């Protein structure tokens, strides 16, 4: 018998008086007892809306569930339940963990208090019993020194520890169903691996069911029994995890599986959704990577260092070494991949190269000339030659500028192009190059999707015809299918303009696909530099080995 059964679920969102958006279009699936079901889809697929509908947490003012929808939990329709009963069910029988543990925990209460609160609320446990129970839960989710953690505030914990606390709160009342909405997306790969294992272990031990919501198909292969693939509010395909991975029926599922860079091959271009939906299939061809060793060096860092200082007490100050003595070379027309987890200093390296942060020491040689001691005026001409594409396309474009203004501004500053008309023509040409329509010119950034915005950011960097392009997690915030398109675009641009890339990413599969040389960073230090195939087949440093073993989907490859 199934624990939860969703039938004909349809949810409308009111955008304004005139328009409504159907986010979920009549879907149905079951969650059996003691099983893990993965709801997979890209942004806008309606997967999170489905989860919120099950929890009864849809915003009342603008969301409407279609009257024919049914969500049966052990024979009771959750949608018809009065608010009080639903609240009693929520947290006790069905509980949920979210993507951002930091914003889901209340910053002014201790961890122990927040776990105990869930117990007092639903189990009516007195404080004297709730506390030892909370301690026991913290131990169960694998938090080190649970006794000390009980009195800690959320900000004193790392992201992974916070997510463990969230899970402890969620399982406090022994729910039958745990809904996990992208629980590992905001975490580093090594931590992601631990959390996944924790959820899988709890599911087996506690005999509960898990509804695991994610955008990353490679994650679910290891933990899910059933997989439901959603797109645009519809279910494209559902079935057992083995069947979905071994013999996907739907073109979209096949495309999702294929557009992640594979670990055993290096196709000339990554397949994108359109290849599958259009029926043409992926294009053949292998790409060669790696350095011969005699390429000219365009950019070199020697002993690059950066320290941040924090005030400590009244007079003291604390030093944080973000980058320590980093030395590397970037060959002309090639790609240097930089891999590391958050706090490894990989982003700081990019900013130091561009002089966006002031280095504490070392040298940056551009064609043999040290950029760091140059006065601002002299460094100005080098700004043209090194450009950067940031991680978050929602933050890196000025929302008050039109795309035209965004593209023409760097040209105005550096005097590129002949007059307004010339710059306009150049902008339109670049828009075409990055695959955007000409009428984007007069639009504002908010009218574009994340992938399109990143194309605009790339076009902006290209306006100055840079020789070095720093891609700082430039595709990390995007859906996998969009990621593939942008990686193809970056590759095409490199082929055409012979640009050199510094490709910074936490995603090892992507770096392996893009880079001719890979540099692994940890705590501000470069622990290993090697060719991409070498580093993946025979990693030297233990940290590199740890990173590789944490890669999702490695088991299936």
């Amino acid at each position, binding site marked *: 018998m199934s624990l939860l059964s969703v039938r004909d679920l349809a949810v409308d969102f009111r955008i304004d008086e005139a328009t409504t958006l159907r986010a979920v279009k009549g879907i149905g699936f079951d969650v059996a007892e003691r099983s893990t079901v993965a709801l997979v889809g890209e942004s806008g697929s309606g997967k999170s809306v489905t989860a919120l509908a099950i929890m009864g947490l849809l915003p009342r003012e603008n969301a409407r569930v279609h009257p024919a929808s049914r969500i049966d939990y052990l024979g009771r329709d959750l949608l018809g339940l009065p608010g009080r009963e639903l609240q009693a069910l929520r947290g006790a029988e069905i509980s949920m963990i979210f993507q951002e543990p930091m914003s889901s925990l209340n910053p002014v209460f201790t961890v122990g208090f927040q776990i105990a609160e869930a117990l007092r609320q639903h189990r009516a446990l007195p404080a004297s019993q709730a506390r030892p129970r909370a301690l026991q839960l913290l131990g169960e989710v694998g938090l080190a020194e649970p006794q000390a953690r009980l009195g800690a505030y959320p900000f004193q914990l790392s992201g992974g520890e916070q997510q463990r606390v969230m899970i402890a709160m969620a399982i406090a009342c022994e729910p039958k169903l745990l809904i996990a909405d992208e629980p590992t997306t905001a975490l580093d790969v090594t931590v992601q691996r631990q959390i996944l294992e924790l959820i899988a272990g709890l599911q087996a031990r506690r005999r509960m069911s898990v509804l695991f919501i994610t955008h990353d198909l490679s994650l679910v292969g290891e933990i899910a029994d059933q997989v439901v693939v959603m797109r645009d509010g519809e279910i494209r395909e559902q079935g057992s995890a083995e069947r979905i991975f071994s013999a996907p029926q739907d073109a979209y599922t096949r495309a999702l599986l294929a557009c992640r860079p594979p670990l055993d091959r290096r196709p000339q271009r990554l397949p994108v959704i359109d290849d599958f939906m259009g029926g043409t299939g992926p294009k053949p061809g292998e790409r060669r990577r790696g350095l011969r060793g005699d390429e000219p060096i365009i950019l070199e860092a020697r002993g690059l260092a950066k320290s941040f200082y924090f005030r400590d007490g009244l007079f003291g100050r604390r030093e944080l070494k973000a980058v320590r003595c980093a030395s590397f070379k970037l060959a002309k027309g090639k790609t240097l991949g930089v891999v590391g987890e958050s706090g490894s200093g990989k982003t700081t390296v990019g900013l130091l190269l561009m002089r966006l942060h002031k280095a504490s020491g070392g040298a940056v040689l551009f064609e043999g000339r040290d950029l760091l001691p140059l006065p601002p005026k002299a460094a100005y001409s080098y700004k043209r030659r090194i450009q950067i594409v940031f991680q978050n396309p929602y933050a890196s474009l000025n929302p008050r500028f039109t795309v035209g203004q965004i593209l023409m501004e760097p040209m105005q500053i550096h005097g590129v192009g002949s007059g307004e008309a010339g710059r306009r023509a150049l902008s339109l040409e670049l828009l075409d190059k990055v695959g955007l329509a000409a009428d984007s010119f*007069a639009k*504002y950034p908010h009218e574009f999707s994340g992938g399109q915005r990143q194309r605009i950011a790339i076009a*902006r960097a290209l306006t100055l015809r840079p020789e070095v392009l720093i891609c700082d997690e430039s595709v990390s915030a995007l859906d996998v299918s969009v990621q593939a398109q942008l990686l193809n675009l970056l590759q095409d641009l490199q082929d055409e303009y012979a640009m050199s890339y510094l490709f910074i990413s936490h995603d090892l599969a992507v770096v392996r696909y893009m880079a001719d040389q890979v540099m692994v960073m940890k705590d501000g230090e470069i622990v290993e530099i090697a060719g991409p195939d070498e580093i993946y087949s025979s990693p030297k440093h233990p940290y590199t080995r740890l990173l590789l073993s944490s890669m999702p989907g490695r088991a299936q490859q």
Partner: protein
Amino acid sequence: MNASPGVWLLAWRRFERDRLGLACLVVVLMYAAVMAAAAAGWIVRDWSEEVAVTYAPPTFLGPEAPRGAPAAAAAEAAPQGAREDYGIPDPLAGDLAEIARELAGVSATETRAATLAFGADKWGRDVLKKAVKGTETSLFVGLVAAALAAFLGTLSGALAGYRGGWIDDLFNWLYSVFTSIPYLLLVLAVAAVVNQKGVLTVILILGLTGWTGIFRLIRAEYMKHKVREYVLAADAIGASDGRRMFVHILPNVSHVVLVQLSLHVVLFIKSEVILSFLGFGVGVDTVSWGSMLAEAQSELILGKWWQIAAATLAMALLVTAFSLLTDALRDALDPRLK
């Protein structure tokens, strides 16, 4: 290529749907029109003419019981009696009679109205016209002083927030000095230094003391925005500091400035009233709601309430409308706050 709606147009579309906000905008615009017309001299140019009897009550109350009439009758009777007593004609008899008649409210040269639509003040000036003329002063002071304060606050906030370091310290020190002195004391001190009554002085006082709140907010906004990726991106393409501050960041915080501007207009209209009430406001040759309230102080003892009522009503309507307009503006400009 058809143009896309910018942020301001989108904000206007949200504002358009707010009925109360629109109504308040109409009220405020009407006040502004009155202010402009009064300043141009199209209306109430004759506000200072003494057209009615002293404290002529509003028409709907009817004329006051002629308090002076028995006295006048006695005065007219008196000279006759004097003549009878001494048999000497009084050389001042004619003048005295005229003074007596004047006291009774009947001038020799003009006839003054016994009642006015909204009453008259001590000198027989029309209270309604005074209130309209007062609108000119009060609203003008509010608008210009708020613009001055917003300009100073935005500029200092931008510099302090963006630059940080000693510039930030300097402005923070100034801010602390300004805010640690009790507000009225500060205003009085500036007023004493300037030592010249007039609209411009009031504007200067309010503008120079009122920038602190805006400074604090704009400084915080700049600190928040200067580390955003779009500003970093502007740095990466080689935009200068000034360009990043005013071309990139300012449009992104301009909604804060606009809401603060609107808020400070209300604040300064009220401040002007307080200043004038305390006698540090506009001079005697002009009128503001504050000076009307100051006059009304002594009138209230005599039970002449219409001057205070006129000034209060005029002010309350504008301040309420402006405050609601500010709220509507905030909702329209920053829908996430709702």
